[in-house]
């Protein structure tokens, strides 16, 4: 069985990617991890200008999870192309540029600069960003904005275009449909959930920006439900993200409808976890003699005699 997956003309050698912002720029771990064994690498979110990011503290641990508010600190697209891409290019894996921006123009500008780089195999668009024109209102919580971003970017690239959705909405499927309608090749589900933690002695938030993004095993059940909802709403592939630490976790995501998965926070604990997860997936498929991976994707056996009305009460 092989895990190969094709998005447009791009062939990923397996179904395991590393999530944006959880793997540095890929070069930090070269002595720890053979990145050519990964299906692909989602870069840290790149913006037009370098971003210093938020003040400290930026992270704090929670029960089976963590909060972060890095503030999309990144070296900027130009420096990425000069310093990082040449290194990443050398390795036999797919590089997906994750783009963050505070205006549609910026999204387009960054994408255009990267689209001409042959080391870049596709794009993942982080729409969980404040829309400066709208006074900081989040792009990701307005289906119209998500549609508009997708439409404008689709015009500008023939490479795989993946829209990464935020879970902090009532119906994530609306947003997936909006992206699909405007020509997105896939959606990534999910980004972090809004959360916070407080130091009860200083009465200060444990991260400088008060609220932050919750990630890690704690959110896996929520991520699975969001992937399941999305898979049932769109025909384009769903890339599952959220709390994946073991190959068993990954299999759960495939069963609810993910075509590929991303490993995020787990990289902090075990930078090579993506590789062991890919190996575990192989083993599982062997043991269950699954020789067509797509027969696993979305193969959830739901309980027929349960009406959706009763669900989750």
């Amino acid at each position, binding site marked *: 069985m092989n895990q190969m997956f094709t998005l447009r003309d791009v062939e990923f050698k397996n179904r395991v990617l590393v999530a944006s912002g959880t*793997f540095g720029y890929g070069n930090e771990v070269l002595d720890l991890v053979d990145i050519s064994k990964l299906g692909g690498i989602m870069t840290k979110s790149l913006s037009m200008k370098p971003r210093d990011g938020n003040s*400290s503290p930026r*992270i704090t641990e929670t029960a089976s999870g963590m909060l972060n508010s890095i503030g999309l*600190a990144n070296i900027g697209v130009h420096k990425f192309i000069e310093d990082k891409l040449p290194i990443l290019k050398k390795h036999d894996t797919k590089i997906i540029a994750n783009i963050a921006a505070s205006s549609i123009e910026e999204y387009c500008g960054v994408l255009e600069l990267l689209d001409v780089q042959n080391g870049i195999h596709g794009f993942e668009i982080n729409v969980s960003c404040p829309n400066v024109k709208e006074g900081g209102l989040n792009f990701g919580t307005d289906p119209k904005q998500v549609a508009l971003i997708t439409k404008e970017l689709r015009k500008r690239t023939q490479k795989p275009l993946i829209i990464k959705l935020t879970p902090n909405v009532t119906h994530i499927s609306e947003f997936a449909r909006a992206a699909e309608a405007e020509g997105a090749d896939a959606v990534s589900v999910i980004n972090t959930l809004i959360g916070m933690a407080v130091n009860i002695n200083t009465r200060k938030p444990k991260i400088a920006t008060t609220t932050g993004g919750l990630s890690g*095993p704690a959110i896996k059940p929520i991520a699975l439900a969001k992937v399941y909802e999305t898979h049932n709403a769109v025909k384009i592939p769903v890339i599952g993200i959220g709390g994946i630490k073991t190959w068993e976790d990954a299999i759960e995501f495939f069963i609810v409808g993910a075509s590929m998965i991303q490993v995020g926070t787990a990289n902090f604990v075990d930078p090579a976890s993506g590789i062991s997860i890919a190996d575990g997936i192989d083993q599982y498929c062997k043991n269950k003699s699954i020789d067509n991976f797509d027969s696993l994707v979305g193969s959830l056996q739901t309980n027929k005699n349960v009406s959706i009305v009763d669900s989750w009460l």
Partner: protein
Amino acid sequence: MKQELVTIHSFKYLTPEILELTFVSDYLGKNALPGHFINIRVDQNFPLLRRPFSIFNIEGNKVSIVFNVIGTGTKILASKKIGDAIDVLGPCGNSFLTFAEGEFDTAVFVGGGIGVAPFPFLTKRFNPAKKIVTFLGGRNKSLVVKNGLQNVKISTDDGSEGFHGTVLDLIKSDFKKNKYGKIRFFTCGPLRMMKALADFANEIDAECYASLETDMACGIGLCQGCNVEIVGGERKYKLVCKEGTIFETKSVKLS
């Protein structure tokens, strides 16, 4: 840098509260330098994140850390048994030795509480041409570790050992009595202590190198969670885990 499963060789209480954990690693024995830290996965499930610990001592392939139980992770670590395997990632960060050369006669080590951790190993590997004086501060005597240090002078907040007061007051009064020639400070401990020391170092214009501590998700430059604000430079922040943990105090905002 390497991620490996190492075997616990021994436990030893250096004080009623501070425990030394020694494990076996050929790799770290060869490659770890004073000031480096290792990142330990104390449990498969909980807590989620690794816990960073400075390297306290190395003898051949015996590597040790010291800690006191302050929470979930250190409690689990203290409950391990000899022979247990632990998942260790390191060496991480930069080394004090990078700053051990140059124009000074005496290296003054200043450790606050468990911040003493890197100094015994640093003492062992330090440039023999230099004189070493060590000042230790602790809340009380059971939090003061003297092992493997040279010319140790102690202060405790409660006066249960040595000078009764802060380590900085001890240093100031000591400097009135003794002459050390041109000095350079190397420090690790509570931020407030290191900040006070840095200010004092400026007054007497001595260089001061501090090992900083922040919460860390990865310890190897992946998460960008461990930022410290720097003075000048075109970037606003540096990463403590990768570009530190040791910085010249002049170059960073200690607060």
